[in-house]
């Protein structure tokens, strides 16, 4: 049997093939290895050699790595306290390091598809933020977005989105989405105004921000370090951090001017000026630095900043000191936010149930399609048309996913609801097509035309009913509106016309 396909059917096949390509090209189906999602730049020998986020590790010590299990089993048996040689091979380079533990890397298996899952499926955090007691104008909001993006980048977060959003009532918000692991103290990091002030007595010497008095901030090696923890009198531990800060000329001169007026105090530990340099963050006192005699009236651009973190155990003290240091470095580099902020919504989702969740949804979809095909077969007793209906429905879903992969649209839970909505209306339309074409009046062409009048009518009513959701509530349901609109449009303009042609073919036979 020779089958000649019509233009509309070819069009659907073309879209289907292109969608499959968009979903699967260049993914874990064709590549092996594990993907680096984050690499800690500080004190990291692999980073220094050039290993970066996005690289794919294919082997360690010539042992092939295909899964996360391979990766962790090789590394867990390897380091036993002594310095050993490790060979790390990526798709384009080989790295050799000597160390007593493997440098800090976050890795994941290469995704099997190009589909990007939203936070509620893949894990991550989302915050919606507004200024406290103040309505922000568009320009103010954009400034806020820039500073925040800058601050999160300086903190070391890369896979993130910071955008201004507004809602139907005209409120402006800042939306932050961070994929993957949620950083500790996220709340503090995004809502803290970060107003850093260095004062001697009542006089401000400099404030934070590279647009202000700061030239640069030391971040690694000898320029930033944590001292080993010490025990306090109450049994808990504390650890001191220190890092260098480079001031701009102006701030340095101000420092000279203020210190020149101070007197010198002689103490058993050495000679210091009468007043210390006090550091404040958002009005809260951080620490006080004694200024040595030699700096009196000097134009000095380098200052050493210190502070401490405490904890119940040594490890906790070191961790907290590290976190405090990173926070402080970040606000010193990026400056303060112009407004006090309020987090109106903060969601942190763990990726741990994500896979099961996706599987459940796939199962639900599969069961639904099975039920539909069963009903259709019982009703029409026409296996060719019933099979075509199921094929067309599955194609529709694949094309929606293909478009989502192509435009890098994040599939979130509302988006999946949208796909379900599409399947539902899609099947409704296909049933209309089957019934209209099987009537005994007029020519087949006219019957198809009539069917499409009904389908287009239903299409436009659904289309317009979705429009308000594009903007309502800071765009939280935009995913639903967009996916459904893509879905019903694909259906009405690509797959359903193809189904009409298939029905024509079946009738002619």
């Amino acid at each position, binding site marked *: 049997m020779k089958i000649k396909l019509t233009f509309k059917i070819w069009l659907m096949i073309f879209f289907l093939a292109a969608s499959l390509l968009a979903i699967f090209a260049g993914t874990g189906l064709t590549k092996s290895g594990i993907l680096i999602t984050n690499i800690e730049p500080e004190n990291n020998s692999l980073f220094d050699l050039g290993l970066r986020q996005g690289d794919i590790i294919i082997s360690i010590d010539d042992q092939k790595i295909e899964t996360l299990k391979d990766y962790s089993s090789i590394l867990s048996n390897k380091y036993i306290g002594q310095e050993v040689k490790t060979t790390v091979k990526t798709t384009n380079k080989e790295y050799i390091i000597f160390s007593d533990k493997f440098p800090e890397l976050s890795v994941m298996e290469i995704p099997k598809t190009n589909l990007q899952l939203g936070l509620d499926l893949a894990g*991550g*955090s989302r915050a919606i933020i507004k200024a406290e007691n103040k309505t922000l104008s568009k320009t103010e909001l954009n400034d806020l977005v820039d500073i925040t993006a800058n601050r999160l980048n300086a903190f070391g977060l890369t896979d993130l989105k910071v955008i201004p959003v507004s*809602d*139907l*009532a005209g409120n402006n918000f800042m939306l932050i989405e961070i994929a993957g*692991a*949620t950083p500790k103290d*996220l709340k503090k990091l995004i809502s803290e105004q970060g107003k850093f002030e260095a004062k001697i007595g009542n006089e401000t010497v400099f404030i934070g921000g590279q647009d202000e008095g700061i030239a640069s901030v030391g971040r690694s090696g000898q320029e930033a370090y944590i001292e080993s923890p010490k025990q306090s009198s109450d049994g808990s531990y504390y650890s001191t951090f220190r890092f260098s800060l480079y001031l701009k000329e102006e701030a340095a001169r101000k420092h000279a001017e203020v210190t020149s007026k101070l007197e010198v105090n002689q103490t058993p530990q050495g000679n210091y000026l009468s007043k210390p340099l006090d550091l404040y963050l958002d009005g809260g006192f951080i620490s006080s630095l004694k200024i040595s005699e030699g700096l009196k009236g000097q134009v000095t651009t380098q200052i050493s900043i210190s502070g401490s973190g405490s904890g119940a155990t040594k490890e906790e003290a070191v961790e907290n000191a590290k976190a405090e240091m990173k926070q402080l470095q970040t606000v010193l580099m990026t400056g303060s936010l112009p407004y006090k902020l*309020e*987090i*109106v*919504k*903060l*969601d*942190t*989702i*763990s*990726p*741990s*149930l994500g896979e*099961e*969740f996706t599987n*459940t*949804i796939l*199962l*639900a979809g599969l069961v*639904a*399609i099975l039920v*539909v095909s069963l*009903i259709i077969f019982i*009703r029409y007793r026409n296996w060719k048309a019933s099979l075509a209906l199921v094929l067309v429905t599955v194609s529709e879903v694949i094309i929606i996913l293909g478009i989502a992969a192509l435009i890098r649209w994040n599939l979130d*839970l*509302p988006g*999946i*609801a949208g796909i*379900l*909505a599409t399947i*539902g*209306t899609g099947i*409704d339309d296909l*049933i*209309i097509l089957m*019934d*209209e074409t099987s009537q005994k*009046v007029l020519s087949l062409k006219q019957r198809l035309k009539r069917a499409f*009048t009904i389908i287009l*009518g*239903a299409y*436009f*009513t659904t289309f*317009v*009913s979705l*429009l*308000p*959701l594009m903007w*309502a*509530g*800071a765009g939280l*349901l935009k995913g*639903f509106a967009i996916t459904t609109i893509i879905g019903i449009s694909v259906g009405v303009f690509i797959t359903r016309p193809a189904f009409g042609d298939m029905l024509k073919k079946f009738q002619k036979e």
Partner: protein
Amino acid sequence: MEKRNWHDRNYKKLLLIPIILILSSIIYLFMFNVQNGDFVYKDISLTGGTSITVFEKTNIEQLELNLSNQLPDLTIREIYELTTKEQKAFTVETTADSDVAKQAIQEYLGIELIEGDNVNIISTGSSFSEGFYKQLLIAILIAFIFMALVIFILFKTAIPSLAVIISAFADIIMTLVTFNLLGMKMSTAGIVAFIMLIGYSVDTDVLLTTRMIKRKEGTINQRIIGSMKTGMTMTLTSLFAFLAALFVVQSFSAALTQIFTVLVIGLGYDLLNTWVTNVSILKWYAEAKK
């Protein structure tokens, strides 16, 4: 003159069923509003509050007993594997602040909860949620008005268009009443489902109306029966597909469960409102025009 069958004699009386249901629904919702200050019970996605999902096993009743005096408006849900019924996690919802809720659960379980690791935390401020809810209501209203406009443009005649709109409206309020009677709490997802319902309920009405007023072949009754065959297949297929999906997602996703539940109820009422409400009005209209 053709012989009058049962439907020909009684279709006007049949219209009483939806009229009574619509009126009592409106009265019920009005009373509900007086009593509760709103047309629905809202969950924390619309009132503001905290939802914490913990990926640990615990005895739900014990937990509820322990937390109920610490956290206001407490709801606890279990998440379990579909086939083995093995508990995977549980979700605590409360109007309390996220830090307070997290602390309380942490103290009860005796383990540290780390955001993005063994716990999901979704927290929403109450003023933001209120604004969000108001906008979603406006969105439904606009969606409904847009739909009505398209219907008028499509059919260009007042009574058939109104019949479609009344049927869609009836679907929505009857579903809403059932939703309340079942004691369910409306979430964002539920509102999305109501918007989906507008689309679904209009589908079959558009089919029916097109066949009734734009076609000339056959008698009115033949056209009604033809539409009914098609329309019933459409609605029943969707209904059973959603029921099947509902069974699969039941414990796993509260959001999808609510969407499917609303759609199943709504499609059920759509059978009544398309094939009784809409058909009767259209038939009356067609008979009167003769």
